[in-house]
């Protein structure tokens, strides 16, 4: 199994897609609830596996293009088939996942094994009949959107109009139509004329869930820009600029690095957005630009370790975050296979661990605690014992239920709310 690089539920929550470092996509499907086991709300089993991207070589630059899947986004369902977009650093692909459970038999011109029949053998005309067969799930690439990004793609986002989507790399954001692969529109370009003047890059971008003309993008300097595509074709001028003023007392050489936003997500309501930087998660009201309305500390105990984390590059880890179905809770990952959940009202936070040790299937998760200094209580773990190789970067929340998917390196964990 390869390292999981993205996790995403579809709009219904019945399908869960994961992408990995090897370019593969694995889709899990929820079992239908049966009358015999009403308390088990359906387990997820492998539904389809396919190779989405292959490693490529850019001959002009003599560089490898990694096949790692950076993001997967589902399209809203329009017919019996499922569609998703998957992207690596350079190319976005639209995949169609369809089921086949019937087979046609009794062709006139073909034998059962597919060979063409001799014309003189065709003595009568018959109507082919459909016979059931074992379920086969096929994935086929329907569109390939390539050659539009010079830099590494970090985000894709499907628009609420269900016809367009955006793709963002370090310096540019492009707008695509799902039907058209040979053309895309550049809507944001922050590349300076002189690359030596580059001080800021785009880190994430997302369309508003309801307003199809609005999108946001975050930067490595901890700012978020909201753009309205009605104002101009090129959205270099933002409509809103979100930035929290820096606290001068906590300024250090690492201030900028830890302020870099690794993920931005709109709430389901569309009224708020959430940003994840290295040490915290912030909730912003779209109507207030000068500061976030809520700030949650994910692992404040790491603030005194920033120098070491800079040395071993952990400070550059990009954590994602997600909203619960009702926007009442937010979730994000941390180190040592810990992940954090924050209830917004009333304020409450929990640390849980995604690991097989001490956790039997269907057992309640035990809350964990990290102690920073002094005596370590029983069951607590000290900061120095944390395993920084076990990082939870990717998490997803079911669109309607309290069901979460947590990717811990090459394992996928699924947790659900306790059933009373």
């Amino acid at each position, binding site marked *: 199994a390869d390292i999981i690089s993205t996790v995403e539920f579809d709009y219904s929550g019945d399908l869960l897609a994961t992408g990995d470092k090897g370019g593969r996509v694995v889709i899990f499907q929820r079992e239908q609830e049966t009358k015999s086991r009403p308390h088990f709300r359906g387990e997820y089993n492998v539904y389809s596996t396919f190779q989405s991207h292959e490693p490529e070589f850019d001959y002009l630059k003599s560089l490898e293009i990694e096949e790692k899947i950076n993001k997967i986004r589902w399209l809203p369902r329009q017919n019996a088939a499922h569609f998703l977009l998957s992207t690596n650093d350079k190319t976005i692909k639209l995949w169609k996942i369809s089921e086949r459970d019937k087979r046609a038999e009794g062709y006139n011109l073909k034998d059962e094994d597919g060979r063409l029949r001799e014309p003189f053998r065709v003595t009568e005309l018959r109507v082919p009949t459909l016979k059931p067969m074992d379920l086969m799930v096929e994935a086929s690439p329907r569109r390939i959107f390539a050659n539009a990004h010079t830099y590494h793609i970090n985000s894709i986002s499907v628009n609420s109009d269900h016809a367009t989507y955006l793709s963002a790399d370090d310096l540019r954001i492009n707008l695509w139509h799902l039907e058209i692969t040979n053309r895309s529109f550049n809507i944001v370009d922050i590349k300076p004329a002189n690359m030596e003047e580059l001080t800021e890059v785009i880190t994430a971008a997302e369309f508003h869930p309801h307003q199809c003309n609005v999108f946001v993008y975050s930067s490595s300097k901890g700012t978020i820009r909201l753009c309205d595509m009605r104002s101009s074709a090129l959205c270099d001028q933002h409509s809103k600029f979100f930035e929290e003023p820096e606290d001068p007392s906590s300024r*250090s050489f690492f201030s900028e690095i830890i302020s870099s936003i690794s993920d931005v997500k709109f709430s389901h309501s569309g009224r708020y957005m959430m940003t994840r930087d290295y040490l915290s998660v912030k909730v912003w009201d779209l109507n207030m630009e000068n500061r976030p309305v809520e700030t949650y500390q994910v692992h404040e105990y790491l603030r005194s370790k920033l120098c070491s984390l800079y040395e071993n590059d952990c400070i550059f880890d990009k954590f994602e975050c997600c909203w619960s179905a009702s926007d009442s809770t937010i979730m994000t990952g941390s180190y040592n296979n810990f992940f954090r959940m924050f209830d917004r009202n009333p304020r409450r936070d929990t640390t849980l661990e995604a690991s097989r040790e001490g956790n039997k299937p269907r057992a309640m998760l035990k809350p964990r605690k990290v102690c920073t200094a002094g005596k370590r209580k029983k069951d607590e773990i000290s900061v120095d014992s944390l395993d920084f190789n076990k990082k939870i970067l990717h998490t997803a929340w079911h669109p309607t239920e309290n069901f979460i998917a947590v990717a811990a390196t090459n394992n996928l964990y699924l947790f659900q709310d306790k059933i009373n």
Partner: protein
Amino acid sequence: MFVRGLKRKCFDGEEDIEGTLAGIKAIPSYNLQRQSLLDMSLVKLQLCHMLVEPNLCRSVLIANTVRQIQEEMTQDGTWQMINTQSTGQASLDRLVSTDILCRSSRDQAEGKHVPSYGTFNKDFESDQAQDSSETMSTASSVQAPRNLQSNVWEMENPQENKGNFQKSLDQIFETLENKSPNSVEDLFSEVDNSYYDLDTMLTGMMSNTKMGHCDGLETFSSPTNTASNSNCKSDLNELDHIVEILVES
């Protein structure tokens, strides 16, 4: 837990380095930490993966950190201090000048980035014993004493250094941007790969800079310890020798 054999103090926030005697005593420690952070950052910038494109976001963040340190150092006036001590500057130039090697051999041949040498350098070149990575040692060692010379004798103002530094930083960025096929082959053919091992680099840099800062110019005898394959280490030894001569004169 993850620091490889190096104990380093983490700094959280800035110390107040103005005013009190205690504050003045704390200056070398803070400067040392800042210098080691600077060295670490430059090494990170240069350790670009040659086969896969480097992460632009990471590079930008590290470059911004470097700029920030440099600005603070200029403001403090410690930039001058470091010039006279020369170790920091030398290691800085060393790290920066190896960037030249990331360029295509065509550029080097045209002499675009290789500086014009004075008579001082000629003697130095003849002293070179190493065969592997000869290009590296020649280019970098020559570069360093040239600046060193100007530091000690001409008392360069910080502005000029800043300009050089900025230029070097820009060169690094350009390197990250433009990777020509030639540079990749050159790199693999001429350069000892151990140079790009972060551990070797850091160990080499740290031990030398630490010495320089703490003990001043007198104790420049850098230990010729384990990393015999680390060419930069041996270059620094040569450099120390040169500096000793300069200082005593």
